[in-house]
């Protein structure tokens, strides 16, 4: 029953999914944190930029963004992100698109975390003479990150699922393999069950573990 699997690189496809998710997660955590810092910072122009970025980007379908990285950035404008072969280019473009999109949700998750820090904390920090960077870096963000673990975990799970959108530009991840297998084999339900199982294995533990961590590290108030 499972014989046909020998012809396909199932683990390889899911490994690509994991790589896409991991690289995009790191990238969007960095860019999303910068956006969140801009959104709560004292410089009006940066605040405006952060707000505009989040409101615009999260209202564009990820599919439009990913497809644009390939058709627009790569094929029209000639951006290749330092890669030569099509596969690597598309992989990097997909990561770029995922970071561009996901960072707006990371920013919102962090901001919701910052909002759970009581005003008194920041006031006390300012009262002892800390600067904005110190208030944010030493007092507010450490607490905010701890209460953002759960919303960030939700963003990560959504990111893992969103990596399938890279199928739109032909990155060989799990959804592309699923399409290929369905076209060639007559075992639809089994194939769907295997792919679904793969995603459940990726997302369910992530949610459970990070949910537990989130409860563990959250500041009790």
């Amino acid at each position, binding site marked *: 029953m499972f014989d046909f699997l020998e012809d396909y690189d199932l683990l390889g496809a899911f490994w690509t999914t994991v790589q896409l998710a991991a690289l995009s997660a790191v990238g969007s955590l960095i860019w999303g944190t910068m956006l969140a810092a801009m959104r709560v910072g004292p410089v009006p122009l940066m605040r405006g930029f952060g707000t505009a970025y989040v409101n615009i980007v999260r209202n564009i*379908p*990820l599919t439009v963004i990913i497809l644009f990285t390939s058709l627009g950035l790569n094929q029209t404008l000639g951006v290749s992100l330092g890669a030569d072969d099509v596969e690597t280019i598309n992989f990097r473009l997909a990561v770029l698109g995922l970071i561009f999109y996901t960072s707006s949700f990371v920013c919102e998750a962090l901001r919701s975390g910052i909002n759970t820090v009581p005003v008194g904390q920041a006031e006390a920090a300012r009262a002892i003479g800390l600067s*904005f960077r110190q208030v944010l870096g030493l007092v507010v963000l450490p607490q905010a990150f701890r209460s953002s673990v759960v919303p960030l975990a*939700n963003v990560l*799970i959504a990111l893992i699922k969103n990596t399938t959108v890279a199928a739109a530009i032909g990155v060989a991840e799990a*959804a592309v393999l699923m399409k290929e297998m369905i076209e060639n084999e007559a075992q639809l339900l089994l194939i769907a069950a295997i792919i679904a199982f793969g995603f459940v294995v990726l997302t369910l533990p992530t949610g459970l573990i990070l*949910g537990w961590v989130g409860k563990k590290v959250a500041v009790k108030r």
Partner: protein
Amino acid sequence: MSSVLYDAQGPRAKRRNAVLTVVFVVAAAALLWWVFGTLKDKGQLEWALWEPFFSGTEAWSTYIWPGLLNTLKAAALAVIIAMPLGAVLGIARLSDHVWVRVPAAVVVEFFRSIPVLVLMIFGLALFAEYTNVSSDDRPLYAVVTGLVLYNASVLAEIVRAGILALPKGQSEAAQAIGLRKGQLMRLILLPQAVTAMLPAIVSQLVVIVKDTALGGAVLTYSELLSSANTMSGYYGANIIASFTVVAVIFIALNFALTSFASWLERRLRRAKKSTGAVVGADEAQIAGTTGTGAGGTV
């Protein structure tokens, strides 16, 4: 909160902020300069490529409008089917009977942890193999199937969060005057929960509208995004222009929905008559974190 993070600015802070602003403007200008330079080099700023959208209605009536209608059709069908399904699943998860609660929970958690695209591809193959739906209609069926399966389980979590958010006194009072379980749910909890859930449901609409684009990119469903592709073929490779127009339409549509959701939320939180229970636009996903917690609004 954000204003609490820093003091009223003195001369040094003002100077530093001015420097930061200048640096930021320079960086943004450099990026814009590069973007415009590249666009110009590749001839993407030629008026001929943008003209179809500004003069005449052909581009709108032939490509964009039908595409937008198909997007809205798929989204509307998905919502209409997913709502009752989600309500049933959500209520089933709150059942007193283990044999109802556990299967409902398994179904909800399963479909929430699988990408919509996988569900859509599965749907497409399913309709091809086991039904005689014509191959023209299959993409629509597949898109709606995928959206319904995923969003019904997300809506189930929203319903559950809405009912759980109601004050305990509501069900206690209903039990005290002798209502049955069904009456309690139908007459007391659901009507109040529906109001409380409205913001979360409206913002879930945004997710549904965005996900229809998957149907265009992968399943050959002729919605708004795929109309951009066709257009750029017809009007001479104006990818940048077509994608910009399509993105702006998506942004306008979704921004209207998001604004409506937050307006509803503010209104409900202010309302004096209500119980004060509101499932906010972003709260549904937080409320459902006991399981996988797959974010609803992402």
